[in-house]
């Protein structure tokens, strides 16, 4: 779906997406990391369960909510990716334990 620009830096950071290893580039947001990794949705909605993907990429639309390191409802586009992050697709409503 997305391909990195040829002059983009090397993807040196190691993260997991739903437990599977993936690579990220320093400076990527979590949402960009997901898109670059070919993930086609980052959450399902609480009401209908429809799959949603990052949309505005600037903190406005809240479509990119994901679970990061065990905390739900985080805006993936506003969180810079870090080495070792555990990113999870969020299914429906956030749970208070997550």
């Amino acid at each position, binding site marked *: 779906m997305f391909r990195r620009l040829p002059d983009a830096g090397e993807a040196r950071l190691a993260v997991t997406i739903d437990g599977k290893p993936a690579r990220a580039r320093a400076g990527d947001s979590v949402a960009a990391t997901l898109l670059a990794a070919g993930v086609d949705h980052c959450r399902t909605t*609480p009401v209908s369960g429809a799959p949603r993907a990052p949309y505005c990429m600037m903190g406005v639309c809240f479509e990119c909510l994901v679970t990061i390191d065990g*905390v*739900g*409802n985080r805006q993936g586009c506003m969180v810079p990716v870090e080495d070792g992050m555990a990113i999870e697709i969020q299914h*429906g*409503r*956030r*749970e*208070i*334990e997550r």
Partner: protein
Amino acid sequence: MNATTSHDVAVIGGGLVGSAIAWGLAKAGQRVAVLDEGDIAWRASRGNFALVWVQSKGLGMPQYAGWTVRSSNAWGGFAEALKAQTGLDVCHQRPGGFHLALSERELEQREAMLKRLHNQPAMQRYDWEIVDRERLRRMLPQIGPEVVGASYCPLDGHVNSLRLLRALHVGMRQLGVAYLPNHAVDAIAWRDGEFTIQSSGGAVRSGKLVLAAGNGNARLGPMVGLAVPVRPQRGQIVVTERTAPFLNYPVVTVRQTDEGGVMLGDSLEEAGFDATVGTGVVSAIADRAVRMFPLLARLNVVRTWAALRVMTPDGFPIYDHSATCPGAFVATCHSGVTLAANHALALAPLIAEGRLPPEQLEVFSARRFDVPAAA
């Protein structure tokens, strides 16, 4: 007389008290107009905590406890009637409710207060109990280590109060009530059995009058011979982002709404007509809530607000009928949600008949404040 603007009853105030009474009056066959203020109104009905609450109410006036129990018992049928009529679910639930104690001393004080309440002569009997920590954990597994116990009452519950206000407005209009927004009332005259109400939206005439204007009743009451000593009392509320359901019972200061947000509240401040939010109170509310349920600390707060309760000197409602302007009634309380079922199903039919039976409602007359304080 201008027949086109004359109604059987004019209700001043379109909040929960006024709209519940107007809905009940229309059900009783009355032709009703509701005069509502504009968006400048304080509107306690849009800022409340939405409990339908029984436990701890009525110390000093056991009849108020009985009146509250009656409304709690009528609430299920009231919610069903609104849904059947309007299609709107106000999400009434009555799983019972808790008041949590964060120390042994708090729990002892709570138990002593409830014993005093229930030992009053003429107190209506209903179930309540003190629940120890171990039993409490089975019902509220997320309580924190500081919670030592709680009082529980199976009659307690909660609703979606914004949807209640909407359902009452939809319902009363379906029943033919004339809703008149932007009708802030300036003056009321009574002559030859008819009220003439001068408002910013024009004059309205009616045979009977109900003052249900919250804190505005203090100003309006004397226009028709009623003393209504009410004052604003500020409450602040914090609400979190929505989460999957985890809290199966409302707690007096913490409840999860039908939509998933968690409301934290129950502050009391004497601040006059000032509905600003202060970080000091909000911090205290959040701190106590997190001590009760430590997992709440993980949630994002999305909004805080303040609203003004409508408070009488003793905290109990006022229901009164004017002696000098027959047909003028006042209904005012700080529990417009809890008492909505009574206002619609019990009070409105009495107003439709034109009298408040003394054996039932005398105790709520504002004449109780005429007694000089003991020296």
